[in-house]
């Protein structure tokens, strides 16, 4: 921590944690990158916008990270600090006389506009009137200040505070301190024994043997790059691009089908993320000549303790998850293998993922921007529904808006829909790397693998690859 002068006031300023450095690194090396996340939360009822504005201010007061800002010191190092409570303008935007898709497109445009990086607010809330009687809020945040868990928490808090003010329901519980949690993370990063233990684990993982790149669109990318580099044994591929323009395709799995996946997980005591990873790695195997060695990037939310769950901020780390599966292995055994791998990663997930990436690149002599993973998976179990609270039965819907750019070729985020708990598969893809048709094709095969697998847990991977 150091004290810096912020607009004439001396503020306590803290270095960035590893999860924030990941985003800062992206901005430094890809200046056209946008770190904004846009979301919408809309209820189908008349809204008292004066009351809603008060609820939003109250939520601002509760969430330290909604008041988080950044500053550069004299050496160009980025620091962060919390501003005292401030009442920023919260405008109302009325789209009620327009087509709903136009309204969402407008909000996508807002999401593509970055925030000023220093000494300035890193989020914006706008109250929204949509057609068809839906009203609510649009929230844009900088990813260096909040991740999806924090955003869901903030949106949920606004709704709960509003309902408490209007209907007398329970207020949300107070948040935990972001700064205390940050201090814990920074203490870990400062050469702690826990960090040394994690460093040893990841070093052994890196040096095990070289992974194999498997692309979501087949072997073309790797084979082309092998020819270009005159290296028939090349196992990595360049995945970054100077053209980061991106789009999102959302595929909704029907409620009943989604519940079949949920029930399978309950019956065999396996996490949904492990099942999804099993589906994903099997499709990648299929698209890459039944390759047995498959790696994907897996997202770890890193919110175990209640202090971590309720401190806001951005905590996500991405790690490579590699599995080598023989065709004789059964679907359920494959999921168990993934579960065991995930458990190992969970135990070492505080390690800085950028440092890991750099060390892996140095060890295997990768070019900058090269990788063994073509796709990242995030499973987000949190929804706007909090079954522990009594809330009025109001129909609502939520939206995630793309900021229009992406560093990696493909991010898959699987989330539960608030209205029926069914699964939405959000594919955010870089347009120069993937087409929408390829996304549909990938999703189709992903579903085929998942349902062939869950209808017979003892079916082997080889049999599933044959069947699909």
């Amino acid at each position: 921590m150091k004290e810096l002068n912020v607009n004439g006031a001396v503020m306590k300023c803290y270095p960035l944690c590893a999860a924030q450095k990941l985003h800062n690194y992206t901005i430094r090396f890809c200046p056209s990158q946008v770190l904004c996340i846009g979301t919408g939360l809309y209820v189908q009822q008349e809204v008292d916008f004066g009351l809603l504005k008060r609820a939003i201010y109250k939520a601002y007061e509760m969430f330290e990270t909604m008041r988080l800002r950044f500053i550069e010191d004299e050496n160009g190092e980025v620091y962060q600090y919390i501003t005292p409570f401030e009442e920023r303008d919260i405008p109302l935007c009325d789209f009620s006389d327009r087509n709903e898709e136009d309204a969402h497109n407008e909000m996508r445009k807002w999401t593509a506009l970055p925030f000023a990086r220093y000494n300035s607010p890193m989020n914006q809330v706008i109250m929204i009137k949509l057609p068809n009687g839906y009203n609510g809020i649009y929230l844009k945040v900088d990813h260096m200040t909040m991740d999806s868990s924090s955003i869901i928490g903030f949106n949920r808090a606004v709704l709960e505070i509003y309902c408490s003010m209007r209907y007398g329901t329970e207020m949300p519980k107070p948040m935990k301190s972001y700064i205390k949690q940050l201090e814990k993370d920074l203490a870990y990063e400062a050469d702690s024994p826990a960090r040394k233990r994690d460093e040893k684990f990841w070093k052994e993982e890196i040096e095990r043997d070289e992974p194999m790149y498997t692309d979501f669109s087949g072997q073309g990318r790797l084979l082309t790059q092998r020819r270009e580099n005159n290296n028939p044994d090349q196992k990595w591929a360049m995945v970054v691009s100077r053209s980061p323009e991106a789009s999102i395709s959302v595929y909704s799995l029907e409620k009943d089908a989604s519940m079949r996946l949920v029930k399978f997980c309950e019956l065999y005591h396996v996490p949904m993320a492990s099942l999804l990873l099993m589906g994903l790695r099997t499709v990648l195997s299929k698209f890459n000549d039944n390759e047995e060695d498959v790696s994907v990037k897996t997202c770890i939310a890193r919110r175990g303790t209640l202090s971590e769950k309720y401190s806001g901020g951005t905590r996500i780390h991405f790690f490579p998850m590699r599995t080598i599966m023989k065709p004789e292995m059964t679907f359920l055994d494959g999921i168990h293998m993934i579960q065991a791998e995930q458990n190992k990663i969970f135990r070492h997930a505080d390690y800085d993922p950028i440092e890991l990436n750099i060390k892996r690149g140095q060890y295997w002599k990768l070019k900058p921007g090269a990788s063994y993973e073509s796709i990242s998976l995030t499973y987000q179990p949190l929804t706007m529904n909090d079954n522990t609270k009594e809330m009025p039965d109001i129909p609502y819907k939520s939206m995630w808006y793309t900021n229009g750019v992406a560093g990696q070729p493909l991010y898959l985020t699987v989330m539960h829909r608030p209205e029926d708990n069914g699964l939405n598969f959000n594919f955010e893809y870089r347009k120069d790397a993937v087409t929408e048709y390829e996304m549909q094709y990938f999703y189709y095969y992903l579903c085929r693998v998942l349902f062939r697998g869950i209808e017979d847990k003892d079916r082997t991977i080889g049999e599933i690859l044959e069947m699909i």
Partner: protein
Amino acid sequence: MLEKIKEIIVNYVEVNPDEITEESRFIEDIGLNSYDFMCMLGDIETEFDISVDESEIVNIRTVGEAIAYFESLKG
């Protein structure tokens, strides 16, 4: 050991410690997810000065099973 484990669990989920018994299942009854569970193991390792094997804890479902496993590690 049960009381100590209860103290650790309440750092991870909002649960009444009095409702936690040896029969309670970590996921279904207490509401931990697999990440919570693995982090909690780290706390337990520190508290009891033991080292767990990740491949052996996959089959542990209840608090009682966990206690039996940790006791076996303590020798």
